[in-house]
Each structure stands twice: as C-alpha cells, then as structure tokens.
C-alpha cells in the first residue's frame, strides 16, 4: 500500500503561504500552489496503518489511508470518489478544518504527521479542475418531501444526501444567500466563495430547491412546513454568541465577531454595505477578545482592513508550544497554534480578563480595563496586574452558547436539552415526530466537519424514517446482474 518507506524518505511539506505584505492587501486565499509531484510524495508518507487512528480522528471518518494511497498512485479520480464517499464538501474541510485527523495520525507520535488536510484539498481541487465533480441526481424518486432549515454545512450535507436518496428536498435559509457560516462567517482569505458556489450549483442541478430569505418561524410559518413536508430537518446552527457582561459593554465600537465578519464577506461579494452600522477596523486600535479560530478570523480581517493595531486577548494561559502531556497522542493536543492570521501581525495576550470598558463622551469605547488572571477553573485576578488599554474597536469572539430562539423551536415544540441545544434521540429525531435536528443546533458550537458528519447521519436517519412509510421507493429501476 502506498510506499511503505515513504514516511522515512519524505519530510512533511505544505504549500507556502504568500508573503504577508502581499496577502494582507487582498482577500484571496493565502496559499501558493503545490506541485502534483509533491502532493503525491506527501501522500506516500501515509503508512496505511492497520489501525488508522486518523480516520477515527476524523468526524466524517474519511477513508484517509485509502485515498492517500490512491493519490500516491496518481489515481485522482478514484481518490475523489473515496473522498466523496464520506464527505460532501471536502473543498471546505480541506481549507478550514483544524484537522483532528492529523493530530491522531500515527506518524505524529514521533514525527510530523501526514498532511492529510492538504491532500484532501488537493484531491477535490484536482477533481474540480478535471471536471469530475458533476451533478449526481437520483435515478429514482421516493415521492417524499423533506424540508431542511438552515443552509450551513449540516443542512447542506443533509440536503445533498437526502436528495441523492431520491427525496424532494427544499432548503430554507433566512439570509439572502445560501451557505450559512460558510458564506458569511468565514473570511474569503480562508474560503473564497466561488468554492461554495460551485458546490451549490451542483446541488441545484441535482434538484435541491433553495429558498433564501426564508426565516422559518418568522416569515415562513412552521405550520406550512409541517403541512407540506414528510419530514423536517432543523440545521439552524448555534448562533447565539457568548457575551461579555462587564461595565461598558453597551458602548459603541464593541461588537460580536459575527456582526463584524459578515459585513466584510458581503463587501467581498460586491454587496453595498451601508455606511450606517458599518464596522470597520481601518485606522483603529482593535482588541479581539477570544483566542480561537473566530478570533483569528477577526484578526486577519482587521489587518486587511488596515487596522492601526490589533491585540488579541485570551483568558486561558498560553498553551505549550508542543503537545501537552495532558493531551497525549492521539487526543486533540492542547498546544499553541499559529495560523496564517497570526503571522500577519497583532499581539496575542494570554491569561487576560477584561474588567470594564470606558467610553468617550459620544459613547464610543475608548479604554479597555483588564487584569491578568490565574489558571482555570478559577481565573483568579492577579493583584497588581491591572492595566488599561486604549481601544477603538472591540470584537467579541468568545464562542456561541446555542441555537437562537426566536420562534421556530418554540412553535415546533421541540424539547431543549440541558446545554440549550435541541434534544434528539439516537436517530436524530427531536421529541416531535418527523422533526429532526443536526449540526450545531443539536450538538452545540463545533467544527464544520462535525456539521457535515451530523448532516450525513441525520439524513440517513430521515431516510430510514421515510422508508418505513409505505410505498417509499420505486424499485423498478433495480437492474439485473448475471
């Protein structure tokens, strides 16, 4: 399989990021291209493990050793088939997934792991270039109708799976474009929207119906869905941002990341964003509160908007530069990660808590008061470490606390679990017959790859539910072998 000694011959190698000076001046992807020969060499590093930890590290259980081998052999077309067998949107995960697979890669025990995520991206990019990704409409129809609420990764993955299983699928999206967080949450320099559009085109040609501006429970009555569809899948995400309840929070210039980032995405789409209410970092002293991926997205966006300065606050202590013994292989390592955005400037601060904001006479935020804190779980303020920082823009990127409750859930009457998410049984069905939930809405804020996984599994559950209803399938298309 593959090259049994590949891992000893080739070092780990990734495509280069474009120089910072160049990339902070545009909104396109930051990576340079990577020669095919190198792509294959990197795939040859895969050891085809008897127990491939990578593929359990991967929430969609990508058949990583299988497609690594195919890439090594230059069998791209089969590789993309194996890739698509478990993942509807590898072009997305190949770009923005934090790659738990690589953390679990066996080679990672004592050497740099296989560049699984990069190989995934190469496979699907290759497939698009070659025109191998084409609509795969079902060859039969079940006559069943499914409504999918929400067009993020969970909803879309579910929609594609359900459509291919022969059901009529309609996706309802409250925003003006399909894609959810992939559209408006992730900056273009990480995910150019054409990548998303070409996938949506495929889904449309497969027969998925998209309805935008349709806010179920608001402008689309829940009853209509229940009347018109045999099953409903809720994939509305967990968009309720976690807030920072300190004095001065109400001041102008303090925004949730998800108020800030979508605006820039719209600008990149060419939409006119009104001056009023525009949140821009240019020329400002920016503080980002929250050291995670969203924080990094705000960081990259702020630099591209030409912020004067950017500081990032994280309440947790600085993680070790290598894998912590507390998170031994193959666990997701507690470890300092340096993303592209971090290279572009700004200062990362650890063990900092914000105590209050102070504004100017116009109600604009001007000062941030903070203090150093001890380690979790107490985060005790350290006396004498209080400080004050001059700020113009504060972005809150502290995560999300669950689905937004503004009508739909209440009207459907689905039960909510202890963590504020939609409660489901093992089969992804909510407490209401025929109503299913998936993605962040069900499991809480998580990774895109988890959303895809959820969407696929929920789709299988919906399919099984629908099949149990008589006259489910037209079996006349079954062929004869001999």
């Amino acid at each position, binding site marked *: 399989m593959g090259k049994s000694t590949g891992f*000893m011959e080739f070092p780990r190698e990734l495509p280069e990021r474009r120089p910072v000076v160049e990339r902070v001046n545009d909104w396109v992807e930051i990576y340079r291209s990577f020669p095919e020969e190198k792509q294959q060499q990197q795939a040859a590093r895969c050891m085809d*493990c008897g127990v491939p*930890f990578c*593929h359990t590290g991967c929430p969609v*259980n990508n058949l990583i050793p299988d497609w690594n081998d195919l890439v090594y052999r230059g069998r791209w077309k089969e590789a993309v088939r*194996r890739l698509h067998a478990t993942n509807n949107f590898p072009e997305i995960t190949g770009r923005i997934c934090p790659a738990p697979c690589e953390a679990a890669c*066996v080679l990672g025990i004592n050497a740099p792991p296989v560049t699984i995520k990069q190989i995934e991206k190469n496979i699907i990019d290759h497939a698009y270039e070659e025109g191998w990704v084409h609509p795969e409409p079902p*060859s039969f129809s079940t006559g069943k109708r499914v409504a999918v609420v929400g067009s993020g990764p969970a909803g879309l993955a579910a929609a594609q799976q359900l459509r*291919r299983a022969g059901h009529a699928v309609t996706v309802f999206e409250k925003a003006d474009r399909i894609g959810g967080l992939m559209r408006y949450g992730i900056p273009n320099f990480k995910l150019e929207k054409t990548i998303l559009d070409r996938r949506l085109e495929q889904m449309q040609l497969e027969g998925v119906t998209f309805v935008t501006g349709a806010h179920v429970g608001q402008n689309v009555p829940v009853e209509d869905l229940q009347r018109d569809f045999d099953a409903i899948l809720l994939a509305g995400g967990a968009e309720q941002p976690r807030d920072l309840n300190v004095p001065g929070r109400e001041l102008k210039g303090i925004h949730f990341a998800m108020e800030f980032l979508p605006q820039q995405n719209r600008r990149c789409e060419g939409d006119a964003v009104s001056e009023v209410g525009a949140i821009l970092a240019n020329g400002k002293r920016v503080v980002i509160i929250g050291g995670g991926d969203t924080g990094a997205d705000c960081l990259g966006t702020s630099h591209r908007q030409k912020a004067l300065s950017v500081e990032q606050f994280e309440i947790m202590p600085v993680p070790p530069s290598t894998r912590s013994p507390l998170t031994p292989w193959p666990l997701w390592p507690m470890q300092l990660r340096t993303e592209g955005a971090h290279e572009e400037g700004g200062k990362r601060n650890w063990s900092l808590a914000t105590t209050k904001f102070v504004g100017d006479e116009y109600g604009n935020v001007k000062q941030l008061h903070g203090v150093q804190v001890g380690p979790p779980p107490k985060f005790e303020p350290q006396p004498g470490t209080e400080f004050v920082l001059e700020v113009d823009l504060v972005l809150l990127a502290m995560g999300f606390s669950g689905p937004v409750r503004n009508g739909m859930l209440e009207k459907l009457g689905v039960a909510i679990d202890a963590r504020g998410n939609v409660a489901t049984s093992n089969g992804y069905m909510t407490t209401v017959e025929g109503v299913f939930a998936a993605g962040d809405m069900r499991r809480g804020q998580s990774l895109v790859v988890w959303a895809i996984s959820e969407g696929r599994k929920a789709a299988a559950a919906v399919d099984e539910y629908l099949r149990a209803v008589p006259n489910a399938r037209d079996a006349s298309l079954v062929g*004869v072998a001999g």
Partner: protein
Amino acid sequence: MSKFHAVSAVPSAQGLYHPSHEHDACGIGFVASVRGERSHDIILKGIEVLINLTHRGACGCDAETGDGAGILIQIPHRFFARECAELGFKLPEPGAYAAGMVFLPVEKLNRLQCEGIFEQIIREEGLTILGWRDTPCNGNAIGRVARASQPYIQQIFIGKPDGMDEDAFERKLYVVRKLAEQKIANSSIEDKEIFYIPSLSSRTIIYKGLLLAPQIASFYGELSDPEVDSALCLVHQRFSTNTFPSWRLAHPFRYVAHNGEINTLRGNVNWMHARQSILESPAFGPDIEKLFPIVEDGSSDSSAFDNAVELLFQSGRSMPHVLAMLIPEAWAGNPHMKPEKRAFYEYHASLMEPWDGPAAIAFTDGRVIGATLDRNGLRPGRYVVTKDDIVVLASEAGVLDIPAANVKKKGRLQPGKMFLVDTVQQRIISDKEIKQQLVSRQPYEEWLQEKQITLDQLPEPSRVYGANPDTLLRRQRAFGYSEEDMKMILEPMASKGEEPIGSMGTDTPLACLSDRPQMLFSYFKQLFAQVTNPPIDAIREEMVMSLSSFIGSERNILAETSQNCHTLKLPHAILTNRELEKLRRISTGDLLATTLPTHFRSEDGEAGLKRALDELCQRASLAVRSGYTLLILSDRGVDKQYAPIPSLLALAAVHYLLVREETRTQVALILESGEPREVMHFALLIGFGASAINPYLAFDSIRDLAHRGYLANGITPDTAVKNFIKAVNKGLLKTFSKMGISTLQSYRGAQVFEAIGLNRNLVETYFQGTASRIEGVGLDVLAREAQMKHEYAFAPLNDSETDLDVGGAYHFRVGGEEHLLNPLTISKLQHAVQQSNPKTFKEYTDLIDEQNRNMCTLRSLMKIKESKTPVALEEVEPAKEIVKRFTTGAMSFGSISKEAHETLAIAMNRIGGMSNTGEGGEDARRFTPDTNGDLRRSAVKQIASGRFGVTTNYLMNADELQIKMAQGAKPGEGGQLPGYKVDEVIARLRHSIPGVGLISPPPHHDIYSIEDLAQLIYDLKNVNPRARIAVKLVSEVGVGTVAAGVSKAHADVVLISGDSGGTGAAPLSSIKHAGIPWELGLAETQQVLLLNDLRSRIRVQTDGKLQTGRDVVIAALLGAEEFGFATAPLITMGCIMIRKCHLNTCPVGIATQDPELRKRFQGQPEHVINFFFFLAEQVREHMAKLGFRTVDEMVGRVDMLETHLAVDHWKAKGIDLSSILYSPPLPGRVARHCVQKQDHGLEQALDHHLMKLAQPALEHQQSVEFSMPIRNIHRTVGAMLGGEVVRRYGPAGLPEETIRFNFQGSAGQSFGAFLPNGVTLTLEGEANDYVGKGLSGGRIVVFPPRNSSFQPEESILAGNVILYGATSGEVFLNGIAGERFAVRNSGATAVVEGVGDHGCEYMTNGRVVVLGACGRNFAAGMNGGIAYVYDERGDFMQKRCNPASVDLEPLIDEREIEELQTLITRHRDLTGSPRAGWILANWNESLPKFIKVFPQEYKRVLRERGEMVIPTGELPTLTIAEQVQHG
C-alpha cells in the same frame, strides 16, 4: 450412567473430549527367518525387540498400564495341536483350519450370546467349528487400568471345508469375521462393544492388548512355550496421546502394524464407503456385500487402514501391490521416475486417492513380511540381515544384540520404498524388484495413453463467458466482496502470484458473533498437524507434493482394467472459464457433464434456501442415475430475485447425499461459483469434495483490476488471472502441508476443518463428521446472510455509490468489522500505563469487556458468577504474587528490535514473571545483570524448528525451555527471516551470516510423532535438569489429547495458544483461518487431562490476545494457571497495531531492525510493569468477589462461569457453551491444577555414570578417557555431561579432548546431543537418529565394528536428522546416514560416507563432506555454509540436488582444496575409513569428482564483502523449473 464404558476404558464423548481425537505413534518391528524356518527363537527375539522399544511407548497415570503392545506370528500348529488335543478336539493339518483370537465380554451371559452369534455365522457360512480354547492370561502381569478393562480372551478353531483352497478359506474367514462384527454390533447384548476379533486366519494369529512391552510374555504365558514357533514375528509398541487406549486398538492389526498417522482418514473412510456400491470381485461374488461396511465404525486410523488393506488383499492383489496403491511413492513431482513406474502409480491414482500421512507400515500376510515408508519418510526404520538369514527390522537400530561378525547387511527404510522378505521364496526382494514386478503386471502406460484424457485434448468451446463490467459491482456485492478483498487479497495475488502476508494476528469477531454478513467459509477453521504428525515444507520439499487429480467416474477398484483409468487428468483444481466450458461440453468416452444451478429465492429466506438445497440434491441424484459423470454446480445468473446458495453449502449438500447413496465416486463435483476468492475458500471446497473450481467472479474482478490499471505495470488481465491461479495453488499446497498432507487427491474430501458456531442440525445434515462444538447458527442465519448481501447488491445505486463495502476485516475501518484493538482501546491502554493511571486502565478494560458484550470472542458470551461467600480484598494473595504467573509471548530478537526485546525482559525479570526469547538465540551478554541490577536475560528460552542459536549455553541459561510446536497465527507453518533483517548481531546470535535469509522449517525435524517429542523433552531435560520443559501447542479440535500426550511425554508445562495471537508475518489466510480460540482449546485440554488424571503433573498456560483482568480470570477458571501476553505488552511499549511488522517499517521502533526506526522506540519497563500490576489488581478484585484467596484455588473452577443469559444476538443466541463449561464428574482427589512434579526418568541416564567418571575433568580440567559398551536404550548420551561442562566453564567449555568416551555397541537416539567443546565421543558400532543434535563444539566419531565384514560406505551407520541445529563441533561418520543429514546445520563440520534424502536442508553455516551417494533433494533451502559431494555416479547435479538456492561448482581455490583434503585425512585417521583412504590415495583423479555446493545467497554476501575468489569454470546449473515440476 457412568461416562465410562464398564470395560473398554475409553470414555464416551463428553464435554470437549471425543474419542476420535486420539492419536498414536509407536515403535514397530519384525523378526523373520528368510528361509521360512519356524522356531521359538524368532518369537523370543521379537519380544526382545519389543522390550527394547519400550521407550517409544508410554504409560499413563497408572505406571503399569501401557498404551498397547502386541505381536503377530504364524499359527503355532504344534502347540495348538497339543493343547486342543488336551481339550478333547483334534486339529487337522496346518492350513486346514483357522485359529481366531477373540475378545469377549467378561460377563458370562453376554459372552455366551456373543459366542452363539459367532458360531451361528460360522455354520451359516459353511465352516465347521472345531472348538474353543480359553487363552490362559495372567491378569497379575498387567496394570490396574488394563486389568479393569481386560476382556475375556478365547481362541476359536475353525475347520476348512474339504476341497476349498487356502485363499478361498481365508476369504471366507474374512466374511465370517465381518458378519460377526456387524451382527454383534447391531445386537442388544450388553458390553457388545468388547467383542472383537484380533485375528481369524489359517496363517497368522495375534496376541495383543493393553500392555507394556515387557508384560506381553507374562500375560500371554503360552508365548513362552517352546512349542510356540513361527518363521516371522511382527511386533508393535504403542504410544497413545492419552490414556484411553483400548485393548482392541493395540497393534498389530490383521495385516499391518503402523507407526504414524493417516491425516486424510475422514476422506479415505468416506470414499471407501462411497465406493461400496460399485465393488465387485469374482473372488467374493455375492459375498461382497457381507463385508460392508468395509471400514469398521469407530476404528482408529491404523485399523481403518488395515480394513482397506484387507479388502484389496483378499480380492486378489499381493501385499506389496496393495501397499503401493494405498501409500504410493511421490511420483507426480519426480521427473526422474521411469515412465512405466509413473504409469503404474498414475493408473492407481485414478483408481483411488492415497492414504496420506506419515507412516512406517510393517505388513505381513503370514508368508511375506515387509515394511514400507510414506513418501516423506517421516518415520524411522532400520534393518539388519544376519549371515544366518534372520532379518530384524525396527524403528531403531540395535534392538537386538547381533554380533558384528554375524551381520551381512544393514539398511534403512527409505521414503516411498519397500523392504520385503518372502519366506516362501526364501529370499529378500529389493524395492526395485518389487516395483518392477508390479509395474509389469499390466500395460499401464498403454492404458493411460488410450483412456486417460487431458484438458488439452478436449475441443475448444464455441463460447466462453466473458467479464461483464456492467453487472460486476452488483455481483461482487451479492457475493460479499469488500474493498479489502480487492485490495488486500486479489491485488497481491494477481500482481505477484503470491498469497498476501499480514501481521499482528486477528482481533475481529468470530463469524458466528459478527453483526455483518459472513461467508459460510468463515465459520470453518483449518486443522493443522502438531506433534502427532509433522507438517511438510511444501516449498523446500516440493517433490512430494502434488496438485494433480483425476476426475470422472470411478470404477470398481477391485478390478484391474484399462477402463479404470478412463478419467480426465487435471494438473490442478482451478479451472479458467475456457476450461470449464470444455468440461461442460465434454463428450469423450462416458464423461458427460450437466450444470445444476445453485440459487434460492432471496425473499423466501430459510424456507427458500432449504427448498433450493433439496431440489439441488434431487437433481444431483437424478443426474447420477441418468449417467452424468460431471456435475457442475453453478451460481451464475444471480438476479434481483435469486441469491446464490453459499457455494460450500451447495457442494457439501450434494457431496454427502451422494456419499450416503454410495454413488459419490461415480461423479465429479465441479464448482462454478462467484464466491471463492481466498486460498481458504478453495481449500474448503476441495476438502469437502470438489474436484475442480471455476471462480469466475474472482477472475472477473481481477480482470477489472487489471483494466483499471491497478496491477503492477505490464500485467495483462490474462497474466493476472494466471498469477491468481498460481497464488491459489501455492496457497493450497501450503494448506495441505500444514496438515501433513501431500496431495490434492487425498486432501479432497478429507474435511480437515473444524466449524465454530454452526449448529448440530446443520452440520449433521450437510457437513457430517466435522467437529462443531458450541452449536450456533443454522440454515436460517445462512439464509439471512445471503439475503443481506443480496439486498445490498440490488438496492438502487447512484453515481456516488459505486464502491464495495469497506470490509475492515484486516485493517480497522469505521463502519467495517469490529476490532478489539481499535483507536480507543489502544490509546486508553497506552495512556493508562504511561500515566500510571488505574482509572484509565479501568476505562480501557471496560471498553474491551464491553466490546466483549458486543461480542468478538467466545469469552464475551461468558459471565463470571459471584460467590455467596466472597472474601475481603486484603485476604486475596497480593498482586506481586499473581504477576509471577504472567509471561510475555515468544517474539524473537529479529522479529522485534533489541530495545523492545530487552525492555520486555527487564520488566518481566523485575516482577518475577517470565519473558521469552522467541526463536533466534540470545546474546550471552544478557545472561549477567546490568550494573543497576536489571537482568536482560529471557527466562524462557524457546526451541523452535529452526533451532537458531540453540547452543548448550543458551539452554543452560534458562528457567524454562519451551518447545514451540505451533504458533497461533500460523500453526503448521515455518517462518522466514528475510535477509535484510539479518544484521551482524542477529547473524551472530543465530550462528548465520549477515544478510542471508533464514528459514525455520514447518516441522521440527526431530519431532514427527509424540514419542519423538518425548525424546526432545528428555534431551532438553538432560542438558539442563534445572529448567522446566514446556510445550507450546495451538488450539484445535483434539488439542486436549495432544496435551495429554505431552503430559505423558513428561513436559512440565503445556501452553495452549489461541488462534488470534500476533505474528511478525504470516499469510492472511493463516492468520484468519487456522486454529481456534484458546477458550475451546484450553477447556478441552483441562477436561481431557482431568479425565486421564494427568492434570496433576503438568502446569497449563494459555495465551492469545488476553487483555484484561476478566480475560485472565476466565482463563484460570477454564483451567490455566499461567498466562501469556504479547500484543498487550507491545502496545504498552508503544505498538499501535500498524500491522507492518513484515515490512520492517515499524514507525515506533518495535518490529523493525532499521537503526533509524529503532531510535524511535519509546517503551519503558515501567510501562510494561504497570500493565501487569493493573491486570493483577483486577484479577484480585474478581477473586475477592469469587471468594478465592489464591489463584491455585481458582484454577479449573469452571463451575464459576456461566453463559450470559441476556444474549439476544441474531447469531450468537444459538451458541451453547456447555461443552466448554463442562467439568467431568471426578472424585475430589483428582487435582485440577498441578500438584506434583513429572518424573523425567533422568536417574537412569548413562550420563550420571559418565559424569562420575569425568569428575577429574569437570573439577580440575584433567583429561579423562574411558571405554564402555552402549545400547539403544541409552538415549541422549553426553547431553547432561555437556550441560555440566558448560555450567561450570561457560560456552567455551573445556580444552579439546579433555573428556573422551569410547563406546561399543548401538547407541540410542540423540547420541552426543548438545555436546560442548572439550568432549569427544567415539562409537564403534552404530547410532540411531539425532546424532549430534544441537552440537555445540564437541566431537563425535562413529565407525562400524572393527570385526564387521560389510562395506561401511554401503551400510547404514547412523539414523535420520543428524546434526540438527548444530552450531559448532565435528562429526565423522564412517558409513551412511539417513534422511536430512545436517539439517539446519549452522556451524558444525561433518564428514560422512553417504546420506539419504534432503541432505543439508536449510543449512546456514558449517562444512559438510559427503564421500558417497546422496539421496534426493540435497541442499533444499540451504543458504549458508558449503557442502562438498563426491559424485561418483555423476548424477548429483541432475537427480540428487535441489538447485533452487545453490550453485554447483568445481573446486578451484587451492586453499579450499587443501582444507577439504585435510578434512578427509582427519576422517580417515579418526574412523579408519577405507573409502577416505582410497580417495586420498587417488586424489588427483578424485578431486574433479567433488562438487562444491555453494548457496547463492551466501555467495552473494561473500562477494559483497569482497571475501570471495570467484571460480572461473562454473558448472552449468539447472533451473528450478527443470528440476521440480508438478506432473
């Protein structure tokens, strides 16, 4: 009712014990007067031979009860006439009456009833009863157990009707005996099973019983009467694996005494039964039906064989003819055999299949007496002819004291050859003459040419099925193909023509527990040879193997006509589509084919399957009656409605139906199936009766792979198919050889498999006679599984769904098969031991035990009961005591890195457990502690078949010596360490050459039978009396009886390995399909040992993926007192089950020798220790709940286990563990664990005497020299002395010749074994097998008696397997040695005057000079060292040598020539060899006749090192293809 029969002593089947598992092996012999002169002396000599073979037999728990012994003599007329006259009846002339020996029930009424029936039959058949005579027997002369089961022994005398000729009388007696046997067996007489007629003949009579050899004369007092005389005396001493041998199973039988084992028995018996309906013989006429069943029910292999001999002999063939037919020479793979002889064998091969297995058979009809060996020659046989024309033949030389001056000739039985004394013609007839007579009986060659058909002769078919890629995916799915099948099975087979290799064992659920639909094939496990018969090396000893077979309608085997060979000869059993079409359309002679579809309507489930099978059987039955001779069972044409019947099920259904209808031999069954694709599938189909198989879907799939460019460059679809067939055939040969079977013809129908988890109903209906011991699934589940695959196949498909199921059977895949070792369990275990966290360990064991509830293993179905009287945890013995019972598995330094190997050893030594060297020696530097007190020495030293690094010093530095008979992952197979893994250090430890690959043969060449194992145990115990001796076995049906034999062979420990254990490299089909779980093997072992009361003297160990405290407790409750672990400790050291051990690319530095990768090793002894202590603590917790304070109390308490009641799994619910959880009802005094030590009988060893004499040398290094006589009963002479020398002086031993012993006489086995430096043994006389075994520096010189007159270079001087595994030292033999001379020699120097077959096999180092003739297959697998052969006959290159791995060259290098000359000079000086003298005297003429046998690998390495002068004038070498081709 008692589980024991009152008298026969053989318990009925109970628990996991079944009487049919008994094996035996033995000593055989005969004494005969060539002139046919009757004398009482012949009998006395025979008894003496028997007594001198006593060590080849065994006794059970009752030291006075033997396993059986007996003698066959001519009717002692003078004696009987005298005795009968006294009883009041007169015997007619010799030949005019018959005497019968009859075993009868002791109880009078029963006895009289038997006698009555017997008499009635005699009268009905027209014979007259002359009278009965009580055979005087002395019950006091025999053992307690024997006495308890002693039958009432009578003799009957029957008169021959006037005018009836002698042969007709014998035939009538045969009819009478068969009728009496049947009638009494079918009667309602109590104790009827005791009735038995050892002999009934006008020529011979048999005295036998459950005796030890020395008891026979005192038990049968009349044997001492001087008037009892005979011109011949056939004797036999039995060694049964357990202690239920019965009176009737003692040898000799009516015509033969057998040392060996018929591996294909099941098939042979079935075939004999199947051909009954067409038996016809003018000799019998209508009487023939009275002989049925030809083979007695419930008989042993030897007895069944005797039945077959009797039928063929009585219907008119001579004894030699019968033997040549049943146990043919290896003809198919021998291109040098004369065409007329090949024709003889080939003709008879088309009549019937060989009875295959290791065998030395002594036979007689009362006039001729002889012996023959099977084609492999795996049993010893030596003979002497005296000047007064007495012949003595026995398993050993020296069984009779014959003055050297009286010896005319000495010889040995040779593979496939016959030795015959004709007392009527009064001469010895050579094998050559016998065979010449046989081959000229009929124009066999003409007959074959005229009647035999080959595939080539058949017309090309007009149409052949092509591949249909459009339906391929659906068909693949319907037959259960997975991505893994394509990638891991078919691709390597099609690319390389070889079976795929894997490593690290298996951890997936048994088929009967898996949630996923399985193939029926997966419910079966291959049986394999261990101890009671040896596996064969199908590669190095390819010449005995054969895949050819004959199909068509079998005729009456009693007739000898040209029509009998009107069959179609197939070179192998795999048919291409074209070949199948040829057969389908065949219309040559009376060959006619019909195709029977094998589908069932999927939606009808079980009912549909049952109906389809019934219909199939009806059609098959009808087809046979209509005259079809080839039935093609075909599953082509699977569609939306119809699913395929599992191919094995369809085949077996038809096979057994036709066997029952006695028409089976009239047709050949051919499979046309999409299902088979692995070697195991083909093996099963052949093993259950298929003649040929067309795996069309495998072909289609391979073609598809080739089209898609998946195969290596340049492999066309046609080549790929050829490669696949080649791989299957190679795999089949390997599979046969694992069971010790040589030919496809005898494997066919031999059903050497065990089923795991098939219910009784299914097995009895379709797989009769196959062991299946835990019940399980039936037709309903098989139907459901077929349905599941079918539904998946015909579900709607779309574009994105174009792949097969992921599989996951070999490599873990989410959504694939379950694995016990998965990312979660592996990481939890590693985290637990690295962080010393018992909580994480508990999480790990919960996952495993939880998985057990999800059911992977048999123990997952078990529940540990809770005691009503638990004890406090503090009262349970401490963990530090429990860990002493833990051992780590045998992993060689070579298979794993130095770092890993030593970490394990340090860990185990710290906690007082034991680590195991594995095969491959151990660095002596590890024998002394490190400065920190750590000891890197492995407590267990393994002795495996390669004997690498097994020096005296190695043996002395051990607490346990473990003889590895088999390995769980690949039982019945040898091993190979590829050259790239053999670095300087490994080579040094293995006494080989760096860079040169090393082969461990499949068998131990000194263990072909149980008595051989006893001998090796004795050898090892002699060398190191302080070490305990362990024998490692692998679970299979019957392992319990083998374990009983091991206990009787005085092993201290028996290890029962499960089938799932890890391995560095093994064929995937072996990893998956050979051997059975340890739960079954261990439980069977415990039960059988208890039934024999042998448990008390042997410790039982078990291993095979033991992982948790629960596993250990279950093993203890089932009967183990020690526990082995390999995979789990490896994981604690960082193993992540990458399963790449065989590629040397282990990324964590464990299973690799790559210096860079070894640096990555991060294992620590502490981690290993943590694991064992966590484990012990868990065991303690269980013990507290169970109420046991010590492990000893827990051992064998199977009553504390029960089956999980909650099992509601669709498959598992049918499983019944009661046979595993069975405990024989025995009194409390029968100990359930080991409480006493084995009596090794060392005190009788001659070495005690030698050591006393050698005191000055041992203590003060003073030279000593003594002379004394020696006999064959003196075994292993020199080993204990040698061990003592090394114990005192280390591996360097003593200065040369410090100790000298000069012996006169016949030395017993293992003369000079493990002799170290400084000891010289000289023997004037002769030696038996294993001279210089493991020689470690000593010198052995053997020459014939100075006053003998025979030619040394023509006479046998020493037995088989000389210098096995020798590492250094010298041997000079002035005479011929037997088979496998210098096998696996890795450093000794030897000069010999001639050798048998397979000389220098697997040799890796050392020098061997052969001054005379060689047998065949010289240098097979030889890849180091050099041999020089004096090729006087000039046929060495062409016929004698196996050139696969060696080059043959002339001697050119002056230095080398001088060395050779020096060696021969020393040989002459030490032995007085006249031949050596002559060669030296004529050196210039002799030198060109020496051929240098130079291993290619060795040469390559020398060349790379620049150490070799390359000779210029190389001799032309033959290619393998020219040399060994299957016919």
